[in-house]
């Protein structure tokens, strides 16, 4: 996959504070998560990419465009859903979304058509003629998403999209983000301090701490690696199930409560494990893949990174 976000020693100084320091990295995922505690610099990074703040040193390229020299092209390519409440007072949802689509460069008729479409997509089709200030918080979040996708951006910046949402609304937002990602036409950059949101939606993650990159990892690769690491509990047999697993090419280590930690080689999956257990007269009472990988990565990054 080609890189679509390249950071080259990017630093941003706001007032007398260095908010971003020497960020360097290349990201190519379909959905990139920006993780970090509050004040880590996630939103500042998004704003710098949008041209709101000027880098004090270094450079960044988004979708092939330099974020300083080609800021206009960047903003044409991006759909942005800000973290805070943001709406235009006095006009309906559909007019708001259409107006922003027109401001992004769409002709009037196409902008209006896409505004209807975007509002239906996010589930606000029935209330699209109501003024935005009458929307609930969850509806306003969805309207912000609609204005961000209506003009057909190549990149979607989502800043804390599940903020203030109740669990069903959060699920709906996550489902929409996944749908956008799966459609494959829009790259997603999701800034959040919620590990779960990022883990559910993203395949690559950039973890920031105190304005520095604490970790940059490919979640898909981690997931693939995790799919190779299983924990199982075997009961019965002649006591040499570990040896039989080693015979399959697995690396085996003892875990707690008589469980085994097993790294599966390529071509070996649960099916082979069950077959081997059957042949060895062993009952498999527990078999699970490693979980919470992002949490572990995040914890490691917070302890060591920055």
């Amino acid at each position, binding site marked *: 996959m080609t890189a679509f976000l390249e950071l080259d020693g990017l630093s941003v100084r*706001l*007032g*007398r*504070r260095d908010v971003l320091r020497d960020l360097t990295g290349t990201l190519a995922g379909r959905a990139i998560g920006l993780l970090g505690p509050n004040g880590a610099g996630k939103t500042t990074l998004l*704003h710098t990419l*949008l041209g*709101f*703040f000027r880098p004090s040193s270094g450079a960044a390229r988004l979708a092939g465009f330099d974020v300083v020299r080609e800021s*206009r*092209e960047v*903003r*044409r390519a*991006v759909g*942005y859903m*800000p973290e*805070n*409440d*943001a*709406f*235009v*007072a*006095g*006009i309906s949802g559909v*007019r708001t979304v259409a*107006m*922003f689509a*027109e*401001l*992004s*460069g*769409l*002709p009037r008729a*196409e902008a209006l058509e*896409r505004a*209807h*479409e975007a509002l*239906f*997509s996010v589930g606000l*089709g029935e209330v699209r003629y109501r003024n935005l*200030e009458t929307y609930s918080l969850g509806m306003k979040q969805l309207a*912000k998403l609609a*204005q961000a*996708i209506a*003009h*057909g*951006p*190549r990149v979607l*910046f989502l800043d804390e999209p599940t903020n203030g949402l109740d669990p069903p609304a959060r699920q709906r937002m996550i489902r929409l983000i996944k*749908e*956008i990602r799966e*459609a494959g*036409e*829009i790259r997603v950059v999701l800034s959040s301090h919620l590990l779960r949101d990022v883990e559910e939606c993203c395949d690559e993650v950039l973890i920031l701490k105190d304005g520095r990159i604490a970790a940059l990892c490919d979640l898909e690769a981690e997931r693939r690696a995790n799919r190779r690491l299983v924990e199982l509990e075997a009961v019965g047999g002649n006591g040499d199930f570990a040896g039989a697993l080693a015979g399959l090419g697995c690396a085996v280590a003892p875990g707690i409560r008589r469980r085994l930690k097993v790294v599966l080689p390529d071509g070996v999956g649960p099916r082979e494990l069950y077959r081997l257990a059957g042949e060895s007269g062993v009952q498999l009472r527990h078999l699970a893949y490693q979980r919470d990988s992002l949490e572990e990565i995040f914890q490691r990054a917070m302890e060591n990174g920055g």
Partner: protein
Amino acid sequence: MTVRTRRFRPFEGTPTSTLTRLLVLPRYAWKEAFAGKLVTGAFTSAFLVPAGALVLVWLKHNIAALVNTPFAGGIPLPIDAQFFGWLLVAQSYFAFALTLFVGPSLVSPDLVNGALPLYFSRPISRWQYVLGKLLVLAALLSAITWVPLLLVFVLQASLAESAWIAGHAGIAASILLGSLLLVVFLSLVSMAVSAWVRNRAVARGLLIGLGVVPAVFGQALNEMLDVEWGGVLNVGLAWGRVLEGLFGIPVRAGIPLGGAWASLLTATVLALLLLRRKLKAFEVVR
């Protein structure tokens, strides 16, 4: 409307031009400007004076219509530069009233509701945003200042003898220049004030205050220091002095013409600087 399937497709067409995008803002803001009945009322009544002037000019050249009236011998009012100057004075009051209603509602709601990041994440600049919003007031104020006044001028020119046109051709330029100054000054100052205080009602109060407080201060300076240049702080007086320079109407402002222009232009530049400072996608907390 049919129920649509979810499609997240990029826009493959040709993007619209910068000018087209710029005109999107006034088009959407225009309807908002006329949301209140007061604005519609003020806008409509602003045409009374120019309409009266049109009738007056027509009657002056059609004395037959005044038979059996006290003016059967003709209307004793010269249609000259001063006539148009006083018309512009009258229209500037309506312009100020309209600015009070419309100006603060252009920018402050966007600031209060956090809409600026939505605008500035699009391919438009801060100054294009300002220009787009300014066009709403500019169109509105133009419609009640130079447009009707030029209509009156054209009617007079078409009815009068060619000698009148030769002697008064400069009036059209004065109308345009004076109106342009008024439109830009009022638009920018009202937008800057509303961007600063972020509240429509407070902005309206402050706009009235800006006309009164510096004037009182300037008058106090005049009294204390026994001078006359304190009048440059009086925006109304400065405007009157500019009109005196353009149309020769007697204002007796007591301030030099250059000082009056400098006063209004300085206020306009200060408004631009204030807008530059306040209209940002995000405030940086230092």
